């Protein structure tokens, strides 16, 4: 963590690099055909009382990004789907740290680069976290957010390497940290998620989400991640900081599906962090499919029993993060954010959904809503 770094000389660092991203432009438009298709799909399937929050974005060839949603702004506990936010913040942090390193140039040695960066960024991270009421002490839950839990663990996240041909040094993700991100996404490892989340720190992670426009830092709607998934006995487990949710009262891993779909859409359009980072993040989500096929929505059979998922001959999930986790009632809710392709037309869509409780129809309600909405939008027989 930042506190473990060697001390640097006490001097003013007159750096200019913004610590957090600018707000991303909203990529979404509206399309009556997509709205109507979703509405009809829900009417024909689970009905308007459906508990699931659902958003779909058409990645149209002309660059338009119409989005349709159902309960799209509701904040829900999203289980491990929310881990993608930790992936995003790590890449946002890398961009900032590289920019600060470039600004420092030859003024920093290999040994003191990260301490100097921490000395610059940490106060800004703490200031940003200080604007978020969810990080204030709550009786019976936790105290104020501490610097140790708020700020990045620079030395664990980055290796310092030569910036040649530029002067000075820059950073790259350490192999160990890349492995944490990889395991977090492709097999949903909780301990690796903890290491990834600790890498950014709650303050940087949620500060980046808020600055990017993916979280409203006042109402705490949008993507919120301030719980590290680790079991209570895990070494260096962080306390949890919670916000209100529709499905499970106060929770530390939550989102609205609109904001989650926005994060995916920006990534798909090479606009999240930057083009190279978007490509890298998509590779992590792609490996979740190619490595072990961790996908809910295309499960068609298990133990000889139909599961109701999308047929692989019609749709291909290309990028994914799934989740399942318990509510306070003990019931488990499922969530998933995917990029999928309609095979016949090659058209691609972002789909995010959460708060599904399984019954004997298993994936059929979600799969049918996806299928009917896409087919309706594409003008195909529902």
């Amino acid at each position: 963590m930042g506190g473990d770094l060697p001390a640097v000389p006490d001097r003013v660092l007159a750096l200019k690099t913004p610590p957090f991203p600018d707000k991303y432009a909203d990529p979404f438009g509206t399309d009556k055909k997509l709205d109507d298709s979703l509405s009809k799909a829900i009417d024909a399937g689970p009905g308007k009382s459906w508990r699931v929050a659902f958003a779909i974005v058409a990645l149209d060839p002309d660059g338009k990004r119409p989005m349709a949603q159902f309960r799209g702004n509701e904040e829900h506990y999203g289980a491990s789907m929310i881990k993608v936010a930790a992936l995003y913040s790590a890449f946002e942090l890398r961009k900032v740290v590289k920019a600060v390193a470039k600004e420092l140039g030859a003024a920093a040695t290999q040994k003191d680069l990260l301490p100097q960066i921490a000395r610059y960024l940490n106060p800004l991270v703490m200031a940003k976290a200080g604007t978020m009421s969810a990080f204030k002490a709550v009786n019976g839950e936790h105290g104020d957010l501490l610097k140790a839990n708020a700020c990045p663990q620079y030395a664990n996240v980055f290796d310092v390497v030569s910036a040649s041909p530029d002067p000075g040094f820059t950073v790259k993700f350490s192999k160990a940290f890349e492995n944490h991100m990889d395991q977090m996404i492709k097999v949903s490892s909780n301990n690796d998620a903890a290491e990834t989340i600790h890498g950014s720190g709650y303050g940087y992670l949620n500060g980046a989400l808020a600055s990017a426009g993916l979280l409203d830092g006042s109402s705490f709607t949008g993507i919120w991640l301030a719980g590290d998934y680790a079991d209570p006995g895990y070494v260096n487990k962080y306390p949890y900081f919670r916000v209100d949710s529709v499905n499970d009262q106060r929770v530390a891993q939550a989102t609205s599906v609109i904001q989650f779909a926005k994060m995916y859409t920006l990534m798909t359009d090479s606009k999240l962090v930057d083009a190279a980072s978007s490509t890298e993040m998509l590779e992590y989500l792609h490996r979740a499919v190619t490595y072990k096929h961790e996908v809910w929505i295309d499960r068609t059979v298990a133990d000889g029993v139909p599961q109701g998922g999308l047929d692989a001959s019609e749709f291909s999930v290309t990028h994914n993060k799934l989740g399942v986790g318990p509510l306070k009632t003990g019931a488990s809710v499922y969530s998933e954010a995917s990029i999928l392709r309609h095979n016949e037309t090659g058209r691609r869509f972002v789909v995010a959904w959460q708060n599904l409780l399984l019954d004997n129809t298993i994936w059929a309600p979600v799969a049918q809503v996806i299928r009917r909405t896409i087919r309706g939008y594409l003008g195909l027989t529902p």
Partner: protein
Amino acid sequence: MSRAALALATLVACGSPRSESAQKTAEPAAPITAPSAGSNAPPSSPPDTRAPTVAAHVVDSGEVPGPGARTFRHLLVGALMRAPIRLTWTEWTHDAHTRLRVACQEGGHAKIAGLGRPGLVGVALTGKENDESYWFPPVVVDYREPGAIHDLVAVSPLPTQHGCSGLPAKLRLTCKPDRVAVLGVGAALIAGGTKPDDPGHRPATWRPSTRKTVDAERCEVTLPESSAGSSFLADAVAGQPLLWVADHPIEWAFENSDVVVQAGAYRFMPTP
């Protein structure tokens, strides 16, 4: 460390008569003989079109594990597994060389009550997963030492379909004595019931929780750099060493049900 140096270090670390005898000669990998379909399948197993498509086989009659063969099992279940997998490893010596056989099985062959958790897809570690009828006939891969001690190569076709795809073509064993705490046969994993941060959350526990500490030989599995990270099954093998226990084989039982429970432990294997 060079390949040869590691092999020597392995030999020294193992220090067992089995390993010492294994350095006497080196032989090239034997040609793969024609598979005899179903030879490793349980006699009572009915034909099933959903069974893995690579037939089980034995390399030759001299390669049947004999007295002194040791067994270990990886058991991988949970909501995040499309189909549960179990890998049953058998190690023995033939002509002074180590032989290793893995029998890979997918679950789902028969419908068994009580395999899962309420509201959760997939198979949980309840103990009921030990029911043999639940498992499809195995796909078998044999490994031999073509040269360096404990550098093993597959001499059987590697499965390419279903959950058994991705077994490593080559692996290296680095062994040393160990002590391991082992749960009883079929010990059940009890999930915490709520999220780790929720009030009243209990860490996952095993029932019964009694463990017996036993002597074991611990063999870490190393994959060639080119295959590390490319296959879930190969990584699962490399991530959890083979543990040979003389008196009573043990298994590594791991359930990945995401936030509900993500835990594993050693259990004694059921007696056949």
